[in-house]
């Protein structure tokens, strides 16, 4: 189910080299794993994405920042076919897909190679913690249950939730639910993980536990595309920042450069507002 081929075609890079190498976005060695091109999306006649392009390299952590309503979440949802783009293509590790025309089968195939972490966790309410992590392995990938459970326990240990593996979602705090949701998403060994404002629904004290799990995931070399309002995470964990406004990418830079040398007035204005509110 995992694809590790075709790496060389994208730049002759060796896979081992870029794993964990976090400095220097440029990391020209790492091949592109995800490429979104010309994503357009309208809701009720109002276009919220005006042809967005975005690429992510293997092992890279890309933070998508921007004011509310800039289309960040819609972009992620279109990439995973939760919302249907009006036009645009997705290239995932070499395979090219027309997002507007993908069939249900094609959509399922794409989603089996990605992970998605929701703002509202969306754990299956009728499954235990362990059941939540196993579901995608057993049902969608036909992994034998014993093997799936063993793997699920390992993933839950990774996010520090294995001791609650028999609990139901309703019995957990928001931070714990989100950690389980991350374990569920990573259990299927996705080629890229999408995070849609994973800490926005959490109290500040619960935000930290989720961010530290994400940081560890990044250190392990997971490819991550993260829509977030957490500037600290963007600055310290992300390799690159993509700044969206009004349904378009208006700036894109290595994380440090983005914050220290804002590319344009819009970014400066956005950062200034954040600084005023002490969010940084």
């Amino acid at each position: 189910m995992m694809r590790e081929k075709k790496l060389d075609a994208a730049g002759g890079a060796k896979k081992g080299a870029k794993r964990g190498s976090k400095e220097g976005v440029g990391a020209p060695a790492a091949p592109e794993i995800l490429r979104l091109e010309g994503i357009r999306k309208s809701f009720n006649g109002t276009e919220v994405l005006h042809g967005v392009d975005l690429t992510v390299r293997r092992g890279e952590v890309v933070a998508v920042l921007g004011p509310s309503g800039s289309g960040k979440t819609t972009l992620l949802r279109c990439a995973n076919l939760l919302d249907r783009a009006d036009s645009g293509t997705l290239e995932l590790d070499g395979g090219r897909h027309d997002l507007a025309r993908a069939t249900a089968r094609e959509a399922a195939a794409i989603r089996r190679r990605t992970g998605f972490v929701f703002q509202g966790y969306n754990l299956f309410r009728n499954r235990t913690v362990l059941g939540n992590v196993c579901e995608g392995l057993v049902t969608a990938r036909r992994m034998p249950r014993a093997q799936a459970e063993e793997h699920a326990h390992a993933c839950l240990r990774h996010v520090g939730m294995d001791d609650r593996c028999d609990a139901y979602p309703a019995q957990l705090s928001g931070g714990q639910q989100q950690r389980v949701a991350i374990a569920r998403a990573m259990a299927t060994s996705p080629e890229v993980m999408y995070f849609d404002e994973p800490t926005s629904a959490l109290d500040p004290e619960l935000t930290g536990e989720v961010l530290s799990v994400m940081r560890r995931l990044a250190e392990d070399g997971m490819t991550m595309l993260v829509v977030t309002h957490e500037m600290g995470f963007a600055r310290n964990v992300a390799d690159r920042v993509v700044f969206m406004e009004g349904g378009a990418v208006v700036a894109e830079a290595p994380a440090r450069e983005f914050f220290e040398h804002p590319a344009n007035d819009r970014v400066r204005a956005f950062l200034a507002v954040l600084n005023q509110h002490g969010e940084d």
Partner: protein
Amino acid sequence: MSERVLGILADSFTKILVPGLMATVPLALISFACALVIATAVALVQYTRVPVLTQLARLYIWIVRGTPLLVQLYVVFYGLPDFGIVLDPFPTAIIVFSINTGAYSAETIRGALESVPAGQLEAGYCVGMSYMQVMRRILLPQALRAAFPPLSNELIALVKDTSLAANITVLEMLMATQQIVSRTYEALPLYLEVAAIYLMFSTVLTWLQSLGEKKLASLGMERG
């Protein structure tokens, strides 16, 4: 109360209870099982908005909910023979009760399905499941749990509604009582007696319902 009446009551108890166990209970349980199958199918058709079938489902619910159960029994039992379709009383009752309760339960299950947050479906998609897999393993189980209390109501209502089958000559509890009344002319005590037996059945079901709800709660599935 005279000794004679007490004697009649004691004598009639088993004569009413046996048709209850032989007719009322199977009538209710078999019809309810069929109704659940119909209701789930109709609810799924509506929830997933299958073209044409959705309109048919609405038509079915509109007609069945808009006409009296007794009239439905009469149409099938006394009306269909005009078209050469002659059914025995008991199967007629099963068919009519299934269709009738199916319509009400379909609305219950559809409402319960729509109460499951959209994020559950999206999460299922995102771990790679197909629509049918998410429906079968995530959405429907949650909906049926949410629908458990109202469906219990419908079962209790159905147990009482089976008394209408007396009108198409099914020998169930009410008809058994009527036969004894016509011999003894002790209407009040005997009808109170059969009422008490219906109450007994309903009480057992109410108790089973609360047991079931506790079981669901222990599975971490409290409603809301």
